[in-house]
């Protein structure tokens, strides 16, 4: 290979006879710097204008803290519920044949494809007091729209595809022979599922949870129409940022942004670690 190299290779990369490395990587790095790095630098440096105290003060203001708590708690609860629901749906779509299976399979991606504002007004109407579901729940004394429960319901829809699409390829690769072997050896249906299928799906479920959580915690459009947005009660963290921007409190907005980004990234990194451990332990 080295014989083809036109010039002595730089130490940080292996030489290649293919052209265009400098141009392609140069453009990539330039573009990323302009679109991601530079704007992020402006965010990360902003909240410290009034020192660490200013940063903490902005985060620990009661309504802000409550909004952060609501965003992360609702995202975690919805992602956890979606681990179960998503597993069920992935399992059914992958393992059984029934009418309209392929249409339903394609529809799973709709929450990804549907603009969040459209989902937002549809959910607010559906779960509102005169909506198809809200109207049924109201006589039971259950209020979804304009309460924290509305945030959870909206995030259930947002997070579902993450779990289903994480699990499906693993289920497809998981040879049904393992399950049949377990059954032949005398394991019941439930035992087979818990002892054979679930361990193999662990990493995929963890990934699905993390992606659904990260997306849910930052979700804005699907949530604000149904949430009611009462400060300290049903106001989500992204809306706090919008509110602070409207009051020209740039460093406060940046502080909340940095806090949200930190938690989301920490969860993603933690799940990556868990996932590596789970897959090292290995399923079938």
């Amino acid at each position, binding site marked *: 290979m080295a014989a083809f190299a036109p010039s002595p290779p730089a130490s940080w*990369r292996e030489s290649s*006879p*293919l*052209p*265009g490395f400098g*141009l392609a*990587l140069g453009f*990539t*790095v330039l*573009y*990323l710097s302009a*679109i*991601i790095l530079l*704007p*992020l630098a*402006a*965010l990360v440096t902003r909240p410290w204008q009034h020192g660490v105290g200013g940063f903490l003060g902005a985060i620990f203001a009661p309504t802000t803290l409550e909004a952060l708590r609501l965003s992360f708690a609702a995202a975690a609860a919805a992602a956890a519920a979606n681990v179960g629901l998503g597993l*069920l749906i992935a399992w059914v779509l*992958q393992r*059984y044949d*029934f009418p309209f299976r392929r249409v*339903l399979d394609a*529809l*799973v*991606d*709709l*929450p*990804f494809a549907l*603009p*969040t*504002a*459209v*989902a*937002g*007004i*549809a959910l607010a*109407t*559906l779960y509102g007091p005169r909506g198809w*579901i809200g109207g049924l729940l109201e006589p039971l004394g259950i209020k979804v729209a304009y309460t924290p429960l509305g945030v959870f319901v909206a995030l259930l829809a947002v997070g*579902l595809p*993450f779990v289903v*699409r994480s699990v*499906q*390829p693993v289920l*497809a*690769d998981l040879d049904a022979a393992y399950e049949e072997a377990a059954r032949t050896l005398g394991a019941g249906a439930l035992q087979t599922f818990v002892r054979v299928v679930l361990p193999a799906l662990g990493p*995929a479920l963890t990934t699905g949870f993390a*992606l659904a959580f990260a997306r849910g915690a*930052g979700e*804005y*459009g699907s949530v604000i*129409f149904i949430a009611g947005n009462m400060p300290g009660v049903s106001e989500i963290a*992204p*809306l706090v*940022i919008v509110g602070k*921007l409207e009051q020209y409190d740039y460093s406060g*907005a*940046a502080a909340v*942004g940095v806090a949200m*980004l930190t938690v989301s990234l920490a969860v993603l990194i933690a799940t990556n670690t868990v996932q590596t451990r789970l897959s090292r332990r290995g399923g079938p």
Partner: protein
Amino acid sequence: MNAAAARRVDRPGPLVLVMVAVAWLLVVIGLPLATVVVQALAKGLGVFFGTFRQPDAVAAIRLTLLAAAIAVPLNAAFGLAAAWSIAKFEFRGKSLLITLIDLPLSMSPVISGLVWVLLLGARGWFGPVLAAAGVKVIFAVPGIVLATILVTVPLIARELIPLMIEQGTEEELAATTLGAGGWSVFFRVTLPNVRWALLHGVLLCNARAMGEFGAVSVLSGHIRGVTETLPLHIEALYNDYDFAGAFSAASLLAGLAIVTLIAKTALERAGAVNPSSRGFHAP
């Protein structure tokens, strides 16, 4: 899809599982979609079509198309360049680069808007420079375009990178040995090999670009007919209690989502796309 493993539903246990799963999909996905259609047509076809004749709606559709028309080609060019350097060459810092490309996926859309205010707004890093030059970015059309680009940066790149890594460099090396130049190798060997994945990525990128709400909402300034995209126009109509109008406009975007899903599913069924990149941002 492993069709061989799919069993017929002939026992009560599986039947219950299938029914619960289908019922949940209908509640979570079917009912919101049905709500959009029913509400859009609630006041008749006249009101439905009337929504799209209002000048503000026309301007909003135009701005949405403009933002997508700028963001999608730029991100496609970026995706191709990033995938070319990452998949065809070995260099240090590669995984850091991939992590950075994926970063916008874990950012709240509101933060994707906020960062531009902090960088280019009146009190941002480059605010004074831009003000002196008389360029308005924030609360204006350029800001909306920048936010759309940031939110959709990873969508095409992450389709191309795994595929081009899988395809390796053999064909390109053969073409180079036969004397083909760099651009010629790219256009006649690499690009044809990834065209369906590129199209798949463009579809997803376009859907997200046209539907983006949070990021553009922060940067828009909400001036009707000027800085309102279609999703922002929907919000404005809804907040004015013009529900039929809001849902009519929403049905246009819902239609786009359905068309995107159909095209994307067709590409996947044709085997043109790696099954692991089915979702909009599956792992």
